[in-house]
């Protein structure tokens, strides 16, 4: 039958250009430092890859993008060699293309629905986005978007992560005054304290965020809303016409197991903040970070991969780093690319393993973890097969450093001081899906504070929804 089919279609398919691989540094080389792992396309690779795009009129990729980037449009400009035009095309709806080109899970979004992907590997949209954004920045040709005349309205943006930055960008362009309140000493939220330098260089984040400053946003660092000022004070005393809350999901969750407060055990948030925000890996910075010889990272999401790979870099060649996860490899929530990079860098995957308790030495420092082996049972609510403890499988795992990367929850500063904003039992803010408006008039929210831990691009998508609604609200009020 197969034989027959082949003889019946003798027409030779045209030579398809394969998906272009992006150059990356070798694992041995890159674990010596915090410099970026991926090197990005050059112009030749980018144009070759861009030619793979079919320029479908239906553009399913654009629908697959939470911020509706004109993907076929920018890729077309690449084929014409207009890289700067391509970057500006993306920036019509996305201020952070160099960031998104690096950290977006394109395989679940634009690239997942790419028509080329139905017969071959999809167009490498993320790599192309990254290339044009880097090109524009490196050429020093970043231009500011046009700004509408001043509206006389001012909006407070709480939190300077992806959601807050996106809302600021949109509102500034519409002529509204924007003041950003950030609790930490740098802008960027998770892009600064969470995602490591080797995956997202901080000077790239700063360069993209810089546009907000150039467009005239007022920046107030070291302002923890709910403590330094309240939402009511901002609206009643400081004259803000609307407020956007993008405070994210910052409170780290722990395993709640005996011995978890031993020395040597920290949250991924703490470990990554020491390394990324406080730059503990650089000698001239005073903040310490400790990594022993046997590191166990609990969790299997992108944050766990970031923590494991950072620990490997801080600890050096003789540090052994393991990911300990209660389910199997296929069920790990991290991006395939991150898992692959971690494997290349020598991270050990200790799967179907669950901790029961932590055991300390005489100095109250962790030395071992008692674990059990798991097997997969029937699917649970999440659709993934439920891990079940194998009886009698208790065993000890040696570890002098433990990093817990189980996810985060919203913090309560605003909820506690603004009880008129309705929240869920989890502490996330309840908002109107179409507008992002909370139960408090003129107060909008988006990003992880609404959804719980999610992705950079989802927060940016929520920011765009809220920005549109805030513009409408300001026009009416």
């Amino acid at each position, binding site marked *: 039958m197969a034989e027959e089919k082949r003889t019946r279609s003798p027409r030779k398919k045209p030579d398809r250009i394969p998906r272009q691989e992006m150059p990356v540094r070798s694992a041995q080389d890159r674990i010596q430092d915090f410099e970026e792992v991926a090197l990005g396309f050059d112009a030749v690779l980018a144009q070759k890859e861009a030619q793979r795009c079919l320029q479908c009129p239906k553009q399913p990729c654009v629908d697959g993008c939470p911020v509706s980037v004109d993907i076929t449009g920018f890729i077309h400009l690449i084929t014409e060699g207009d890289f700067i035009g391509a970057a500006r095309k993306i920036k019509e709806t996305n201020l952070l293309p160099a960031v998104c080109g690096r950290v977006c899970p394109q395989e679940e979004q634009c690239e997942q629905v790419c028509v080329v992907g139905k017969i071959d590997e999809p167009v490498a949209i993320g790599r192309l986005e990254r290339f044009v954004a880097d090109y524009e920045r490196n050429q020093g040709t970043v231009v500011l978007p046009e700004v509408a005349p001043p509206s006389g309205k001012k909006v407070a943006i709480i939190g300077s992560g992806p959601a807050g930055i996106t809302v600021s960008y949109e509102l500034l362009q519409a002529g509204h005054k924007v003041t950003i309140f950030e*609790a*930490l*000493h740098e802008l960027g939220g998770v892009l600064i*304290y969470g995602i490591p330098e080797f995956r997202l260089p901080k000077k790239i984040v700063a360069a993209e965020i810089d546009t907000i400053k150039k467009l005239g946003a007022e920046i107030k*660092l*070291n*302002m*923890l809303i709910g*403590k*330094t*000022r309240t939402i009511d004070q901002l609206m009643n005393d400081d004259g803000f016409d609307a407020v956007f809350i993008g405070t994210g999901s*910052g*409170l*780290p969750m*722990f395993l*709640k197991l005996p011995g*978890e*407060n*031993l*020395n*040597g055990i*920290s*949250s991924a*948030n*703490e470990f990554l*903040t*020491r390394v990324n*925000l*406080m*730059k503990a890996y650089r000698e*001239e*910075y*005073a*903040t*310490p970070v*400790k990594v022993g010889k046997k590191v166990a990272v609990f969790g299997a999401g992108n944050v766990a991969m970031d923590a494991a790979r950072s620990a490997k870099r801080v600890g050096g060649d003789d540090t052994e780093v393991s990911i300990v996860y209660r389910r199997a490899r296929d069920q790990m929530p991290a991006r395939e690319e991150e898992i692959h990079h971690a494997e290349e860098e020598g991270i050990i995957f200790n799967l179907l393993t669950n901790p029961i308790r932590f055991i300390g030495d005489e*100095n*109250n*420092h962790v030395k071992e973890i008692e674990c059990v082996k798991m097997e997969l049972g029937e699917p649970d609510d999440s659709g993934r097969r439920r891990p079940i403890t194998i009886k009698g499988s208790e065993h000890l795992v040696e570890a002098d450093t433990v990093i817990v990367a189980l996810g985060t929850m919203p*913090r*309560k*500063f605003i909820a506690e001081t603004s009880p008129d904003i309705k929240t869920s039992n989890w502490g996330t803010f309840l908002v109107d899906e179409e507008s992002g408006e909370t139960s408090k008039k003129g107060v909008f929210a988006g990003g992880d504070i609404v959804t719980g831990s999610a992705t950079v691009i989802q927060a940016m998508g929520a920011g765009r929804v809220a920005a549109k609604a805030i513009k409408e609200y300001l026009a009416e009020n």
Partner: protein
Amino acid sequence: MYKIVSKEVLAPKITRFSIEAPEVAKSRKPGQFVVIRADETSERVPLTIVDSDPKKGTIDLIIQDAGFSTHCLTCCEEGDGFLDVLGPLGRPTDMHKYGTVVCVGGGVGTAVLYPIAKGLKEAGNTVVTINGARNKELLILEEELAKVSDELIIATDDGSYGVKGFGSTILQGMIDDKKKIDFVVAIGPTMMMKAVAEVTRPYDIETIVSLNAIMIDGTGMCGGCRVTVGDEVKFACVDGPEFDAHLVDFEEQIAKHHYYDEEQACQMDKIITDAEQERA
């Protein structure tokens, strides 16, 4: 930049700063703290607010040179500034009328105790303060505490001033003398707070301590300040810094304080070497 308006050395290695931080000065309440970063390469250091002047827009901090980062902070001069001051953080002290309260301060912990004693006095309590230090030279805030206390007992470990002895021993004496005590606040070295907790435990006297935990952001993000309180794990930065003294696991806190000893020692060595090189 948050300008240093004044600097005063109170005792060897103990310095009082007044800093321009108008937003913090406006909203702070007794028991709350700030996180400070001196410059770009510095650590973020949590410090309790001793006093504030909302009109002048200043807050006062008392810093003990006890390691690399606090050493760098105390080297800053009047007219200089700190790069970052974030606050007020933590929950304010629950101020209400208990009756007779005993405030026990040890060493630089007295700086944390002072605004609480003042607040408790304003709330209508009879305030008895035990101001303790290793010796006379290291005693701070005597005058200020005298103003807000109905009775002030000075105690030094070596007897060089006031009564010779520890705060916890003096408190035990007061209990033995059948003095009516409704509430105790103890702030100082962890060992001292633990000792006070053990003194009041058998008599079921409500006692709180203020923990000086290691933290980075101070906003609930890192979880470095975890403390076991009874059966629960709390974050000192958002749930504290004050906790029920009878429920705190002090041994765990003591171990945590020693976690970065090696790194501290390395950094201090560097300061000494740098200073020597400068001299040469």
